[in-house]
């Protein structure tokens, strides 16, 4: 049994409409998100062959939709909450424990055992509800949803049916195969059927993932099943108000496959419609086949199930006080949307904003760095450039690298202040990334302070000119390109520490002095 919250209210629309602001910059935003999505699910996708998608035919079909047909997409997202214990008993839940090792009379549904709600579940639901701008109801209750399944120990799920904790929604329960997972709390967030394209839908799901990670209610990992999306797709002729026959797609393991699956399904349905075979679209569940890049029938809908909901008598109503909700509201972290707005106002480019705000940990690293006084743009460049590249190569997350925000700020300040050159700065950065330590320590240790004394540089220039008379002669004979050679030699002599501007100024003076 898995608790889930169902937000079917228009409030949630807000979240979908949020991209309207972004739609103005449609390309940048959407593509950037797709990138981060692929990165997040890279491990999983590598395991499967990824044939090229027949873009042309799909594009053509989707073009056609824009003229004659309109797709209607709704998404059910299951978010497994990272509570320490299950929803209705005190069994711990850890992903990947051996089967049936984390069970008790309650989650096994033994006779006489009773569920007791883990208050953390409500807390998580309230957090997500607030973050999705839902209206919370202070009085709600639980209901039983009844059906038989081998690993549904009690023969019913405990859910919220008609008095939801967040307006328009309900808490629900689900059943997994291994009883270890029986009773793991899971939030179900169901969207309005507001989306029209695969990319819009996958952006919605990616935003939800960011949100639950920001809120700290779930790890949001699709590979572990902590975030699962079931998508409903139908198409209808433009102008028709009635929905077309709805098809559910399962087995969507990444945001990119979600987008592709939806676009495939839309084009499949549109083709059937345009060939006058719209009645062949059955209400069914289809499986996305990653290998073949298509959806196939999984099971036809066997009529409407009657779940015989009724109020759960084992659990008292959920009564939230205003103080409780306010306390949670006050403790909510900045939502991804707010963060992006703030970064935007700092003058960062949309590309920077999307990168930095995509991962809560990266965003926190960035925020801490600038809190230490670092230049915003420089901090963003370092994080998105060398630091990101290092993380990618070493397969590390930002929490795992040895560099701390304080030192990145120090590094940026040292370069800006001229203590070290940008080149030395990079050298120090890799030291900090790999081994940690402080900027000051590394500078001292390696004697890397930039040489800004003109006399000292003059000496080095003179030395280099004296040691290379042949090149000097060539230079003075008109081969001025050799300036670079001399600059390199001087830098070498200074062990990279000479201030490049000063070096070049003095070098040119000297080269041209006696001619």
């Amino acid at each position, binding site marked *: 049994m898995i608790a889930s919250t169902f937000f079917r209210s228009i409030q949630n629309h807000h979240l979908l409409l949020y991209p309207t602001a972004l739609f103005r910059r449609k390309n940048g935003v959407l593509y950037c998100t797709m990138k981060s999505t692929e990165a997040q699910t890279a491990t999983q996708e590598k395991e499967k062959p990824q044939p090229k998608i027949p873009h042309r035919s799909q594009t053509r079909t989707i073009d056609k939709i824009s003229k004659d047909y309109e797709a209607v997409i709704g998404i059910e997202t299951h978010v497994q909450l990272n509570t320490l214990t299950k929803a209705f008993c005190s069994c711990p839940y850890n992903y990947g424990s051996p089967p049936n090792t984390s069970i008790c*009379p*309650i989650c*096994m*549904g*033994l*006779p*006489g*055992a*009773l*569920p*007791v*709600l883990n208050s953390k579940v409500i807390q998580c639901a309230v957090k997500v509800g607030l973050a999705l701008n839902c209206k919370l109801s202070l009085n709600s209750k639980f209901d*039983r949803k*009844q059906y*038989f399944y*081998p690993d549904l*120990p*009690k*023969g*019913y799920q405990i859910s919220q049916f008609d008095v939801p904790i967040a307006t328009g929604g309900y808490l629900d329960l689900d059943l997994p195969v291994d009883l270890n997972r029986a009773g793991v709390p899971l939030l179900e967030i169901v969207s309005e059927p507001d989306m029209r394209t695969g990319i819009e839908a996958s952006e919605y799901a990616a935003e939800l993932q960011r949100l639950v990670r920001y809120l700290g209610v779930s790890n949001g990992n699709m590979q572990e099943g902590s975030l699962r999306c079931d998508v409903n797709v139908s198409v209808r002729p433009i102008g028709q108000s009635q929905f077309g026959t709805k098809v559910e797609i399962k087995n969507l393991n990444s945001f990119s496959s979600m987008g592709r699956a939806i676009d495939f399904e839309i084009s499949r349905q549109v083709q059937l419609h345009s060939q006058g075979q719209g009645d062949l679209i059955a209400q069914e569940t289809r499986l996305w086949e990653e290998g073949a890049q298509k959806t196939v029938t999984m099971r036809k809908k066997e009529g*409407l199930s*009657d779940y*015989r*909901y*009724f109020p759960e*008598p*084992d*659990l*008292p109503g959920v009564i939230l006080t205003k103080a409780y909700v306010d306390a949670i509201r006050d403790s909510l972290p900045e939502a991804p949307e707010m963060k992006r707005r703030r970064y935007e106002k700092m003058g960062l480019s949309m590309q920077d904003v999307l990168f930095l705000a995509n991962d809560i940990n990266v965003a926190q690293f960035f925020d801490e760095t600038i809190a230490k006084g670092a230049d915003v743009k420089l901090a963003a460049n370092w994080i998105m450039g060398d630091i990101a590249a290092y993380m990618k190569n070493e397969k590390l997350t930002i929490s795992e690298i040895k560099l701390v925000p304080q030192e990145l700020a120090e590094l940026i300040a040292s370069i800006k202040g001229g203590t070290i050159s940008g080149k030395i700065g990079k050298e120090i950065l890799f030291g900090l990334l790999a081994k940690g330590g402080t900027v000051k320590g590394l500078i001292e240790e390696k004697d890397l302070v930039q040489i800004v004394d003109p006399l000292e540089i003059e000496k080095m220039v003179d030395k280099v000119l004296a040691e290379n008379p042949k090149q000097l002669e060539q230079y003075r004979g008109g081969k001025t390109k050799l300036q670079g050679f001399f600059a390199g030699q001087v830098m070498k002599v200074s062990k990279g520490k000479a201030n490049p501007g000063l070096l070049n100024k003095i070098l040119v003076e000297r080269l041209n002095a006696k001619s």
Partner: protein
Amino acid sequence: MLSTLHPPRSLSRFPRYTLCTLTAQSSPSTTPPPHSQILSIRRALLSRQVTTTQLAESYLTRLRLTEPHLKSFLHVSDAVSQQAHCLDGKIARNEEVGPLAGVLVGVKDNICTVDMPSTGGSRVLDGYRPPFDATAVRKIKELGGIVVGKTNLDEFGMGSTTEASAFQVTANPWDVSRVPGGSSGGSAAAVSARQCVVSLGSDTGGSVRQPASFCGVVGLKPTYGRVSRYGLMAYASSLDVIGCFGSSVADTGILLRVISGHDRLDATSSKREVPDFASQFASINLLESKPLKGLRVGLIRQTLDDGVDSGVVSLIRGAASHLEELGCSVTEISLPSFSLGLPAYYVLASSESSSNLSRYDGVRYGNQAAVDELNSLYGDSRAKGFGPEVKRRILMGTYALSAGYYDAYYKRAQQVRTLVRKSFKAALDQNDILVSPAAPSAAYKIGEKKDDPLAMYAGDIMTVNVNLAGLPALVLPCGFVEGGVAGLPVGIQMIGAAFDEVLKILIAIDILI
């Protein structure tokens, strides 16, 4: 009339005098509260007049003697002597022993016990041994009580005669050709025949009170939420409560005190404080001639209408005048929603049971049908595991909750429940206790209503409203009607305000008998 309570005459052959003698011998200087076997046992044990082993042996002997006639137990513990011996050691070493030390407790078989089978009277759980004790049982054990065995019941508590047990039919100790009532018939019969000192039952629609009336013992149904339901196999979760049987009000009160209190394993258990009322029992010797002066008693008119046995009506009216003599002011009151309670109860209880019994699917425990296919596994395990009454209620409940019928049945019944609750609240604002018969008749013959479920359901009219309202109620013997070997006991039901078991009912009534 209340004072006409007799020991079960048909059982005079059983050595009840053992305990009476013990009581008489023990601490003659102080006056013990009347008729508390628990307190008598405690005094006798602590004054070394008897050992727990002797005491347990006398009960077990009587149990072995009577059990072939009564069949009140589904399982008798083989650890009683050993536990008694252990307690004797503690007493000999002057160690602290709990208030239930040496008290033999029968436990209804739908209440989980870790070291004994717990079948709920159902074939589907034949041989099932739970890995945990119900909270009520755990508390009894912790306070020195000895669980003597598991008592018979109608399958999962669904029935009013104990004939719906999958294993055996229990007989009424007053007339073995009659039913003991149900569903806690085994627990009531066991106390009535002194096979144990007190027992636990469960009461969803009257399953403690009606058998208490039929068997001539005291039955106490606590306020909903007073006692943890953890470990009670759910029949109708919003109505189920664990209740107490004893041969005196004091005993049921002491037992209630032991098992009450909030339990973090039951979200519906109340956090209200459990008062220590055992110390408040007063001896009748100390009371004035009108000890119940000022107690306002409402006699529920609808419970004395047509359809109620005339003998029962006159006993209740007699008891009411007795209460008046003791100082109560008795007025007849009307509960207009009373007759609606019965159908509402059967809709709600069946609906909840259809859900609660879903877990008996043969997959994890209990009897599993030998089939290859999943749906057949469910179907066959349940078809073979459940008896006809259980199936009838699952079907009724499934129907009442189905799409298209929900509003007409379940929702309407919930509305009636609200009405019932309100009308009881209003009546209890005007009165301290409400009084009615516990059942429309005394115990009837085994088999008499077996093929007429509606007639059996109708017998629950006196008790179901109290469950719908979640109120506490006490049933105690108030006389006999003609029938059986030497008359059949009849109980009077006294209903109190929520969480008012203690002051208004128990203490007031205990001084009467």
